[in-house]
């Protein structure tokens, strides 16, 4: 039983980070229909910037973390403006490929700026583990799960309730009509990137104290986040987060029950099965599909 709990904790912790990364994918997809493959790099940037702000400037930890999220958001906005803004053929496929280039560029610059050695951050509230039912839980894991849930709900509320959120979904549903209605479609793409970068940075900032980060950390996190988003449904923030949790649990239990060499294989196997059986994801999309039906 304590073993079971231990795997559960590990799965929830790792899954929350995947889930939050997946939420970033959702955000950009819901607005632009583009799968932003640079999402993982925002997670890496958040962690790296926080480590630098903290160790170089001597700012108190919360301030350093905030600065890192802001700086990453700025990078997200700039990256979007410099690529999507100048795209002569702003079609979904072209823009998606641009994001792949963006990911490679961000990774390369990160390597030049920070070097190859990994970076770490102190934990937010100590290292002494909590003992629950015989299993041990790092306090940082609670920060990770809690913050992820909060951010995820906030993003969903923003998309559903706010005027900007509604406009973003409208733009995703039909760019032309949305533009005719006076919605600044171009600007909304920037907004979606800004929020996605911020969400990614938060994921990086909360996970780095436990997992470390380095310039090439974003690639795999991005891939896992993308899987999570596909599992849950690319257009649905709750679904994407759920997908992340499922992926995390799957990894923890395959490793814990003896298949530690097959961790990644198990995750990708589930992805393939899901794509075959339920290609729209576990939960229904909120963007395009829902508005069309209204």
């Amino acid at each position, binding site marked *: 039983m304590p*073993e079971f709990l*231990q795997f559960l*904790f590990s799965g929830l912790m790792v899954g929350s980070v995947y889930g939050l990364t997946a939420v970033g994918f959702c955000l950009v997809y819901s607005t632009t229909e583009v799968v932003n493959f640079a999402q993982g790099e925002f997670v890496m940037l958040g962690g790296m910037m926080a480590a630098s702000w903290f160790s170089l400037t001597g700012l108190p930890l919360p301030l350093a973390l905030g600065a890192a999220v802001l700086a990453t958001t700025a990078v997200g906005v700039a990256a979007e403006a410099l690529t999507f803004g100048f795209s002569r053929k702003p079609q979904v496929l072209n823009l998606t490929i641009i994001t792949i280039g963006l990911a490679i560029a961000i990774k390369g610059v990160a390597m030049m700026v920070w070097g190859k*050695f*990994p970076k770490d951050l102190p934990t937010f509230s100590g*290292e002494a583990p909590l003992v629950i039912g015989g299993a041990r839980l790092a306090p940082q894991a609670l920060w990770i799960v809690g913050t992820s849930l909060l951010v995820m709900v906030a993003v969903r509320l923003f998309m559903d309730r706010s005027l900007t959120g509604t406009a973003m979904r409208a733009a995703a549903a039909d760019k032309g009509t949305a533009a005719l209605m006076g919605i600044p479609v171009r600007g909304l793409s920037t907004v979606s990137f800004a929020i996605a970068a911020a969400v990614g940075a938060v994921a990086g900032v909360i996970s780095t104290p*436990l997992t*470390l980060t380095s310039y090439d950390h974003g690639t795999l996190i991005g891939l896992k986040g993308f899987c999570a988003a596909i599992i849950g449904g690319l257009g649905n923030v709750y679904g994407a987060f759920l997908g992340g949790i499922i992926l995390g649990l799957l990894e923890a239990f395959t490793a814990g029950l003896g298949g*530690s060499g097959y961790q990644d294989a198990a995750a990708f196997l589930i992805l393939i099965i899901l794509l075959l059986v339920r290609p729209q994801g576990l939960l229904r999309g909120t963007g395009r599909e829902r508005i069309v039906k209204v």
Partner: protein
Amino acid sequence: MRLARMASIVLGVSLMLLAGSARAEEVRAYRIGAIFSLTGSGALLGERMKTTVEMLVEEVNRNGGINGHPVKLIIYDAGSEVTKAVEAANRLITQDEVDIISGAGNMSGLALAIKPVAARYGVPMISNAGARSIVEPVEKSRWAFKSHLTDREVIGRAIDYWKSKGISRVALLSDTSGFGTSARDELKLQAGPSGIDVVAWEEFDMAATDLTPQLTRIRSANPEVILCWTVAPSGVLFMKNARQLGLQQILMHGFGYVVPKYMQMAGDAAEGAVLVSLRYPVGEQLPDSDPTKKVILQYNAQYKAKYGSEPDVYGAEAYDGLLMAFKAFEKANSFDKEKLREALEHLEFIGTNGVYQFSPEKHYGLTKGDAVVFEWHNGGWKLLMDATTR
């Protein structure tokens, strides 16, 4: 008269040519080619290898060269890429016409790619990477030599250490890279005959972000020591996660983790972590009876005097690799590559990492007695088990 003048000119010219060629013969340098990865993923290793060999060549030339021949060093960057490494090897052999290659990309994969190139042209190659297959099977490695241990010796040394402590139950946590799986196979071979019971064989991806599931399994197998085998940052998580789970066992790392920065990152969790490795990192603590101590201290002092910074274990590996080339020239006293190869096959010398002893059957020169065991204590390495020098 005219004829005599012509004859004297011809004579004079040919005399000059003769003299010229004689002088050329006299100053013909021993040419050593070096391929290091100075950029890309292996750059962390290559940096001090380059500065170390440059320092050594400068010194040997200042002292009049080897057997009266100066040494010429040509260095190329392999950029941690196989294709670039092969290109560099071809250029070194066909254009620069080097006599020996010492330094083959400082990554096992690159060395394995350079090996057939060196063999095709018949040029001796000295690698300082880890993989065993660079020099084995020896029938297929005629031209390949190595200035480094393999995981066979390091695992063997770890078993020695366990036996000396009366430890018989061991867990292995290795990454899924070539480095990790090779150690896994090696432990499988050696554990049984040595009476070691490996109670858990766990694996993890190099990019893993949480190792608690694997460590939870290891905990239920109840080993006395946990050996982790990786070069990835996740080796830090191994130590942190283990202590977080309340595991009190001895935590061990292999020779890929002699990186003080990693230990500092793991904080308190790294205190008492035990490593098996080459002896360079604990050079100053070695007993005076250890013949390599003098070489290590001299290398450190010389390096610090020239560059104003500390050398590292990778630089020490390149040091030994270049020393091998020097000794081969000295012994063969020839440019003939076959003679150089034979000289390498019978070389015996003392380097920073051990007492090397090559033979036609063994192209890597070190034995498990050349590995030492040390622990991370109060922010530094502390020697636990000496080398047993032959």
